Structure formats: structure tokens, C-alpha cells
């Protein structure tokens, strides 16, 4: 008799503890971040990289290929009349990939937030966005300044590194997995900085492959 009463009470206490843990997480972390949107962002990045690859390497024959650094080119490739066109096309591709990824992220996270009963524009999502935006805008402006000054080889490593930093910052306010994705991007960025000329390849790995891998992990762990 006594045992039965105690058993019920134990269940109750365990439920209570579980609900407290859930509440602490829900109040301090943005758990509506969608894993599926990470997978899609990775796919957009890979498609964008493929387009960029085609555009760059259709412009130039094999012996002319090289990279531009310190405003001077390593081989006799750039600074032809078609070069400005090339630059604009690449920027357009990057922009389309960025906008599509952000839109997908917002739409899918909105859907998930509704399901989880978490406000999309709450205390946690605001903090997360702030800590993401700070390194992201810093990096973005730095890259634009360097592009303007002709230091093209900084684009791939710097975008990976600053994106990685923004993820590490955001990880305090959402799933911890994001932190490791960020660290991977930072390491990849530093490696890219050491071997210029392979920026597009590393960029495709960092923004494409890693997003798909981590998006899948998060999808299977949290989305369903």
C-alpha cells in the first residue's frame, strides 16, 4: 500500500524535474532553429559554388589560371575587360545564395517555433541574433573593404572565419552543436588562408558540405 503511494510520488517528482529542465532550456535557448534549413543552405551553397566554378573557369584557359593577391595577379589572368563582369557575376551568385539561405532559415524556423510553442521574436532569438550579427557584419565590411583594395584572396578565409565566430557566439543561445560547426569553419578558414587559390573549394566545403552534415545531425536530433 505504502509502496504504491511512494511510486506515484516518485513519478510526479521526476516529471517535475523534467519540466524544470525543459523550462530552463526553453527560457534560455532558441530551440526553434531548424536543422532542415541548414541542409538546404548547404545545398544552395554547393549549387552556387558550382556556378561560380563554371563562370571562373570558362573565362580562362588552363595556363592562365591563378589567383589575385595584394592587387597583383599571380599569373596573367585578370584585369581584362571581362574581368569586371566576372566579379559582378560572382558577387550576384553569393548574394542569391545568402538571401535564399536566410529566407529558408526564417521560414522553416517560424514553422518549428509554432510547433514548439516558442515565440520566434523572443528574448532568446534576439540575443542569438545580436551575437551572430556582430562578427558577421564586422567580417562582411572587412571583406568588402579588402575587395575594394584588391586583396581578393582574403574573401574565402575571412568569410569562413567570421561565420565560424558568429556561430560560436550564437551557440550560447541555441543548440550546442552549432559551436562545433563554428569551430570547424574557423579551422577551415585558417587552412584556406595558408593555401590561396583554393578558396572556392574550401568555401564549398565550409558552407556546403559542413552545413549539410550539421543540418542532418540537427534534423535527426531535434527536428522530429
Amino acid at each position: 500500500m505504502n509502496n504504491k503511494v511512494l511510486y506515484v510520488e516518485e513519478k510526479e517528482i521526476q516529471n517535475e524535474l523534467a519540466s524544470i529542465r525543459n523550462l530552463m532550456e526553453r527560457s534560455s535557448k532558441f530551440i526553434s532553429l531548424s536543422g532542415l534549413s541548414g541542409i538546404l543552405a548547404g545545398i544552395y551553397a554547393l549549387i552556387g559554388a558550382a556556378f561560380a566554378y563554371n563562370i571562373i573557369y570558362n573565362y580562362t584557359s588552363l595556363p592562365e589560371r591563378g589567383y589575385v593577391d595584394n592587387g597583383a595577379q599571380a599569373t596573367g589572368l585578370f584585369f581584362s575587360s571581362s574581368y569586371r563582369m566576372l566579379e559582378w557575376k560572382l558577387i550576384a551568385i553569393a548574394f542569391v545564395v545568402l538571401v535564399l539561405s536566410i529566407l529558408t532559415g526564417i521560414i522553416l524556423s517560424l514553422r518549428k517555433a509554432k510547433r514548439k510553442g516558442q515565440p520566434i521574436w523572443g528574448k532568446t532569438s534576439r540575443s542569438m541574433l545580436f551575437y551572430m550579427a556582430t562578427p558577421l557584419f564586422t567580417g562582411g565590411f572587412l571583406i568588402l573593404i579588402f575587395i575594394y583594395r584588391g586583396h581578393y584572396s582574403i574573401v574565402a578565409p575571412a568569410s569562413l572565419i567570421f561565420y565560424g565566430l558568429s556561430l560560436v557566439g550564437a551557440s550560447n543561445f541555441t543548440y550546442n552543436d552549432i559551436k562545433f560547426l563554428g569551430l570547424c569553419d574557423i579551422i577551415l578558414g585558417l587552412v584556406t588562408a595558408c593555401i590561396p587559390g583554393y578558396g572556392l573549394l574550401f568555401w564549398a566545403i565550409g558552407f556546403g558540405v559542413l552545413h549539410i552534415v550539421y543540418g542532418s545531425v540537427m534534423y535527426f536530433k531535434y527536428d522530429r
Partner: protein
Amino acid sequence: MKIPFEKLDKAFENRLRLQIMSVLVANDRYDFNSLKELLETTDGNLASHLKGLEKEEYIVVHKAFLGRKPNTTYESTDKGKKAFKDHLDALEQLIKQQKKT
């Protein structure tokens, strides 16, 4: 068998109070409206329990204005954090003891 019921904090007997405390322990500060939204409760209910926790000195109230709108935020005190932890420890102790028997 001795159950440490006396270790359970009377101030946390109410479920909502314990919920409020868990949010304030997990976050530096939390404002009234976000708290209300998260815990899905009414203004009056939330306010009265916040007052109760304030009386125990488990939380402090910060009153400020955002433009003209009042923006009240709450913060847990060290005393409150300790009480919360002790309370959870006591609950865990209860479960452990019952598993043994």
C-alpha cells in the same frame, strides 16, 4: 526510512513559483511579459507569485522604462539560487531513497 521532506523549500511548494525560479536561475534577467508568455499564466497570478519570491529575498526587481513603457525585469539573488539548488537536491534525494527501498 527517513525522507528529507523538511529539506523541501516551502516557498517552492507552488508549481508556478518553482517554474519562475527555474527561468530566473537559467537567465541573468527576465522581463515580466516574456515570463508571462513563457509560463502561459495571467498577470495577476504571476505578479502575486513574483511578490512572494521577492518577499523571501529569492529575487530582486528592477524597474525601468523603455521610452514610456514600464519594463520590469527580475533577477535571482544568490540566496534564491542556493535555495533553488537545495530544493532540487532534496527532490533528487527523495527519488534516490525511494529507489533503494
